[in-house]
């Protein structure tokens, strides 16, 4: 009997059915590099991509495939590919679509490594990017050139928490026959499924909320299957003859899954950013509780927002669910369950106050990650950006009093008490 299983059920089950031989309820960890071929004919079939299957773990692995199929199900995509990190996922997408001489339009308000890759690394290989305000669809439209091959942005920007108006930007991309590629790490499919809003390709850092426990680095590309790659002049390595497999046209042979087929045949084969089966298992364990965790993340975030907004030691608070946020209306429309659990706030007293706060809290962990089940904090002014002046930080959209908070799942009163400890230290400093 066929069922359309719901999100919570798919989070637990998608991608795996217990096998008849062992009955293993959990997804087995296939910790193997390679797979025995039953015949030379079978081996050839796998190498030629005649049929699906596993030949070498750099290309695919049964445990990793279970994770991929779970992600495809949760996002409503045609296919997915898991890899070693979110950055690997982004590079795999760009290198699959773009060649030297091509152009990208990207959000100017993104994670530093995303900016670095597009601004400094890709130009060395002849792929240039124009950065535009993600909240300005007209600017995105104007930036698109004849050689533009994709538009890239983050649904919820890191660290500025800008919200992309995905349906509006998707319309622009669709009218120009350009794929909209979104980093959906901060929203996860629980808060928003970008394909339903017209996006074409999603990249995830699985390390964050999807994995959720800060124990494994991983990334993924999820392919909506809703983009027409048939323009051979524009996307010659996807729809035209490719050097691999005797001049294969991935578009003709794999249709909706052309991009993932190409990434597996070229990106994974030639670059090799594979995800270890054990990390795939850890990440899947996290996904099993994603709906429960995201609900609690949002509940705690809303409670801590209320606490911070009213607190005498807090200068400002930034989160898209606050009506003071410039993208609040867009957030309400496309992220009705909540806009994630990252909060930025400023402490009265500037850079020194921020430092004192961070060094005084006990429960919240001071580190560079986000999306852990535990509450995390970082003060860019005294750590990642300590080498910059206040003016230089402002140019990058940061202030020296800013604390970036990743709200965890602890009892909310314990988090508040911990923060009061930090504020007390700041008060002493200000005296």
């Amino acid at each position, binding site marked *: 009997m*066929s*069922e*359309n*299983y719901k999100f919570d059920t*798919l989070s637990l*089950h*998608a*991608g*795996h*059915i217990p096998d008849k031989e062992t009955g293993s309820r959990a997804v087995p960890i296939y910790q193997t590099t390679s797979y025995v071929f039953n015949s030379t004919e079978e081996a*050839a*079939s796998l190498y*030629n*991509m*005649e*049929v*699906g*299957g*596993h030949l070498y773990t750099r290309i*695919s*692995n*049964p445990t*990793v*495939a279970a994770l*991929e*199929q*779970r992600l*495809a*199900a949760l996002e*409503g*995509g*045609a*296919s*997915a*590919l*898991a890899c070693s990190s979110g950055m690997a996922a982004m590079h795999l997408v760009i290198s699959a679509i773009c060649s030297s001489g091509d152009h990208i339009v990207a959000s100017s308000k993104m994670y530093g490594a995303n900016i670095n890759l597009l601004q400094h690394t890709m130009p060395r290989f002849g792929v240039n990017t124009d950065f535009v305000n993600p909240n300005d669809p007209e600017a995105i439209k104007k930036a698109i050139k004849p050689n533009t091959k994709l538009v890239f942005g983050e649904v919820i920007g890191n660290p500025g928490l800008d919200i992309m108006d995905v349906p509006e930007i998707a319309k622009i991309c669709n009218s120009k026959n350009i794929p909209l590629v979104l980093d959906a790490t901060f929203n996860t499919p629980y808060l928003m499924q970008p394909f339903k809003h017209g996006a074409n390709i999603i990249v995830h850092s699985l390390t964050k909320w999807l994995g959720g426990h800060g124990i494994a680095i991983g990334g993924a590309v999820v392919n*909506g*299957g*809703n983009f027409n790659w*048939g323009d051979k002049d524009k996307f010659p390595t996807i729809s035209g003859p490719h050097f691999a*497999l*005797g001049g*294969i046209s991935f578009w*003709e*042979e*794999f*249709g*909706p*899954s052309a991009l*993932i087929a190409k990434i*597996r045949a070229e990106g994974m084969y030639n670059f090799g950013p594979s995800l270890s089966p054990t990390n795939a298992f850890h990440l899947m364990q996290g996904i099993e509780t994603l709906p429960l965790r995201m609900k609690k993340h949002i509940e705690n975030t809303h409670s801590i927002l209320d606490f911070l907004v009213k607190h005498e030691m807090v200068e400002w608070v930034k989160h898209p669910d606050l009506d003071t946020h410039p993208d609040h209306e867009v957030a309400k429309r496309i992220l009705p369950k909540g806009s994630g659990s990252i909060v930025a706030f400023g402490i009265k007293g500037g850079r020194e106050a921020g430092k004192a706060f961070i060094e005084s809290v006990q429960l919240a962990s001071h580190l560079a990650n986000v999306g852990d089940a535990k509450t995390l904090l970082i003060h860019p002014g005294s750590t990642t950006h300590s080498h910059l002046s206040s003016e230089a930080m402002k140019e990058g959209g940061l202030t020296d009093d800013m604390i970036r908070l990743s709200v965890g799942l602890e009892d909310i009163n314990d988090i508040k008490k911990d923060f009061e400890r930090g504020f007390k230290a700041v008060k002493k400093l200000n005296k």
Partner: protein
Amino acid sequence: MIINFKGAKTYIGTGGKSLDNTKKTLCFLHGSGQNHLSFIQQARFFAYKGYSVIAPDMPGHGFSDGNPCKSIKENADWISDLLVKLKLKNVVVIGHSQGCLVALELNRILKSTLEALIFVAGSNEIPVNKFLLDLSKENPQKASQMMVTWGHGIDGDMSINKWPGHSHYGEGNNIMSMNKSTALRYDLHSCDDYSDGIDAAKNIKVPALAVLAKNDQMTPLKSGLKFVELIKNCETHTLDCGHFLPSERPMELNSIINSFLLKLK
């Protein structure tokens, strides 16, 4: 490959190999609202085994332009003319679902060209309920989504796929959305209207193979088993999956077809 056929751009999947009309040709016929991508894991497999393969997108389906055919007979005539245009001889016709009905009609039309018939998730009749017929007109996208859900067995529900990382539902919905909006409606009406299947099945003189699916909700196993009884000496296999057998059990299906082909002279 793309050819101009009957005044329209027509796409014919060849499994990644050039078409060679001196070889035995396997002609894959897709089902209602589908296209050549139904046979992703068959076309390349058999092309790389040395067969000549054609998996045409019927008019208005997949990459083919033109208006969708409005009856099973019209579909069969179109394929028959295509085989003539491509100068193909020694053809084994492999139909999936609606493609099986077209194959039955091709058995009437093709004479010496037809070497064997293979029916995948087929029957001599495919009645379609009124709700789905109406929905295919009012909301073809919704009708497609329902067919994709009904058409798959538990592998679809659980996002299990022999092809690593692929989703039956996600791929299935997008494959169906590649067609003209009228394609599904005409296909479903063609199936529902077709009533010559019993006679056509009884008249099969060439070797025949049927591969049925245990959990088929589109052409139920019971109907498929009655169908094969109409065909003289039809080799029959049943696999544990849903209607979309070519993607749900590709290796098993390919192995059965391969063994059958090797037995042909």
